[in-house]
């Protein structure tokens, strides 16, 4: 029977009256790279601390490979945590850092050293064991922290935004490396981040959290293409939100009446709207196309004026004004079919109904 590596069973965590995490139920599979994605303060770090054992859930259970972790301290749990600031021991050398977990388990010095060398090879820092941590670069420290955590052979590796201190370029590089290490060692990784790029590129599955609640769990593409809530739609990736009243639901199409007239989007059975409700229609910038004469009167066509044209090499990011208060963000691939500067042009834009999703009113992510 395939058992979940980590099982969060109705986990609720309160600090006094404040509910940091509310009724989380997730099973994380063995060997999975699982991310918790959410803005700062959404409770994801609190949840991670409950898994690593630094705090106990107020309600519910954390099980690791079927064993209830209640009352089991962080030093006994089969987890290892990589801290946001890495928390490497500055007074120890690199190899002593890596072998610390073995040292406290009473492993002899010779064996510790050998094991540390093996791990240094794994993280591509061979022969650097005698350096002080402060002599290393940011990326090297990152790898040492990973090696230190792997040295205790945890069943689950927990990572608390470990890349956030790095330079952008290096961060992207480390994503690939982390994923590679995870595949090599084959254990479960639970990764906490507020950076959707990190979550989308590395994870097998993602849980999007907001205000202590898990809004949606799924593969990256699912979350991006089929968001279940207004928050997820607005937090993960760029999105245009049009507000209106649901006038008709037929099959999997929803008609919405708003400031831009009637717009049609896809119905989401996981978070359904009802006729007469206020609702949001979300449309990705890349889902918009310029309307040409042939389909000028088709559904979901919006008259607009290009206000800004941000050119990013492979893309044009346009901001168009539609009427008084509405703006449309639109991304165009730079495939040579558009003039180099569109600013000021009057253009009608449109999108396929299947590319828009209608969701009940809820809090939007603020940038």
């Amino acid at each position: 029977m395939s058992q979940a590596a980590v099982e969060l069973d109705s986990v609720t965590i309160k600090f006094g009256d404040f509910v940091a995490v509310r009724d989380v139920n997730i099973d994380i599979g063995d060997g999975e790279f699982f991310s918790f994605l959410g803005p700062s303060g959404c409770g994801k770090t609190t949840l991670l601390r409950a898994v690593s054992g630094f705090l106990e859930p107020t309600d519910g259970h954390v099980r690791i490979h079927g064993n209830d972790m209640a009352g089991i301290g962080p030093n006994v749990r089969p987890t290892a945590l990589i801290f946001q600031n890495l928390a490497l021991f500055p007074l120890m050398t690199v190899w002593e850092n890596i072998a610390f977990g073995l040292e406290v388990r009473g492993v002899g010095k010779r064996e510790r050293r050998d094991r540390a060398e093996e791990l240094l090879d794994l993280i591509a820092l061979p022969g650097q064991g005698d350096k002080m941590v402060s002599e290393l670069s940011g990326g090297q420290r990152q790898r040492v922290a990973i090696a230190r955590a792997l040295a205790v052979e945890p069943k689950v590796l927990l990572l608390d935004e470990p890349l956030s201190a790095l330079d952008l370029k290096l961060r992207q590089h480390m994503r690939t490396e982390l994923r590679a290490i995870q595949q090599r060692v084959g254990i479960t990784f639970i990764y906490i981040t507020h950076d959707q790029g990190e979550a989308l590129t590395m994870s097998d599955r993602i849980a999007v959290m907001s205000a202590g609640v898990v809004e949606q769990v799924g593969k990256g593409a699912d979350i991006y293409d089929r968001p279940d809530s207004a928050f997820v739609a607005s937090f993960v990736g760029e999105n245009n939100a049009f507000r209106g009243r649901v006038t008709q639901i037929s099959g999997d199409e929803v008609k919405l009446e708003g400031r831009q007239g009637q717009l049609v989007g896809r119905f989401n059975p996981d978070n359904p709207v009802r006729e007469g409700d206020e609702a949001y229609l979300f449309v990705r910038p890349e889902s918009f196309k310029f309307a040409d004469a042939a389909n000028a009167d088709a559904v979901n066509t919006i008259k607009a004026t290009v206000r800004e044209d941000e050119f990013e090499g492979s893309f044009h990011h346009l901001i168009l004004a539609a009427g008084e208060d509405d703006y449309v963000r639109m991304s165009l691939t730079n495939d040579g079919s558009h003039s180099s500067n569109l600013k000021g042009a009057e253009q009608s834009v449109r999108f396929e109904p299947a590319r828009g999703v209608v969701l009940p009113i809820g809090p939007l992510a603020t940038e």
Partner: protein
Amino acid sequence: MKSHHMMKLMIGFYIVLFFGYLFGPLIIMSITAFNSSDFPRVSPWDCFTLEWFPELRQDRFLVEGFQNSLVIGAGVIALAVPIGLAGALLLTQLGRRARSGFYTLMISPILVPGVVLGISTIIFWRRMGEMIGVPGEDNFLYEGIFMTILGQSTFISAFTMLVFVARLQRFDPAQEEAALDLGATKPQAFRKVLLPFLKPAIGSAAVLAFLASFENYNTTVFTILQDKTLTTVLASKVRYGIDPSISALAVLIVSLTLVAAFVYEVLRRREQKEAREIEARARAAERLEMQEVAQGEGGEDGPARSAAEIRAELPAASGKGFTLQAHHLAIVLALIAVAGIAKLMLTDDVYAATACKEEIRQEKLERQQELLEKQRQLMQERQQQEQGEKAPRSGDYQSIFDPGNLQGDGEEGSDAEQAPEAPATSDGQSSNDGKDYQSIFDPGNLQSEEGN
């Protein structure tokens, strides 16, 4: 522009004055240790001598006090450092209100006058002894060195606590959590992560505790009872007649202090330099890493190659040899200084300027004769003038010729008016012109010229 210049000049002048105030007394006191004059003074300068140094060793009380001070210092370190550490650790774990309450309570011994601490300590332990049924002299709790260690530790623990609080503020709690997460038990995390981090603070706290204990007087003067420490011996020496051997002791302490400060500064600079080098290496590593990432050279052998390159790019190690030399030189100098002091203390055969002293003695005798002659003439003249008047008034002459008056101590000065049988020399009212004669005529005055 001009006023700015003036301002700078004034500030400079003030700083010179201020440090003159700080060091002047110590310098002058140190100089007097080398003057053969029996009273510690700079002028008139008699002869250069080292005779006061071995004399310290002869003083039984001083040696005994010194030994006690060492024992007490060690005891205070053993008590105040762990207590201060515990206090600091507790403060980091309390809520805001409890913390401020405990902080006030624990810091209060610094503000309570030392005499009050001393008194409360002896009263408490005497009472404790009575309560367990061993009153008075047999009470093993009512013991000078024991109570001094406790009494001093009461406030010295607050000092050490402040040292630890300052250090703990820079401790990242994630370090301890990381240790726990890697499987360490709580005592292991404490011993392997927190204690090494606190090690420098433990060192400074121990030094601070020892120094504070070594020089404490106000509390000790009560708690030490019949025993003595270096400071209490010094205090009674200074109060009841001063002589240059105290200056000699001061020279020793001042030079040890200077040596310690010097070594400390050299070590600190070396440490700083090392830190800078490490930082430079980290920056070099950082640069390389960025280059690699930019070239898209990730993968297996990328970082490995970078390691070689980083090593090649390390700041040249040339600076290291020089630092080591300077650092060794400093230690050698310090050792020489300490050896010199030790030699001064341990050999009896020091330069005592016997010839020079004899010369001075002769000079003084001659001058004395001269003055005696003058005085005689003066007296004769006065006696002639005062014929017809009644017996000479008391006052000046009396005190001048009183042989006992030079031994008098300044402390009793206030009694001088009421107690004419012991006129103190410090008595400013006793005629000033008498002063010269007074000291000249007294046979003992070559030994101790100054009463106050």
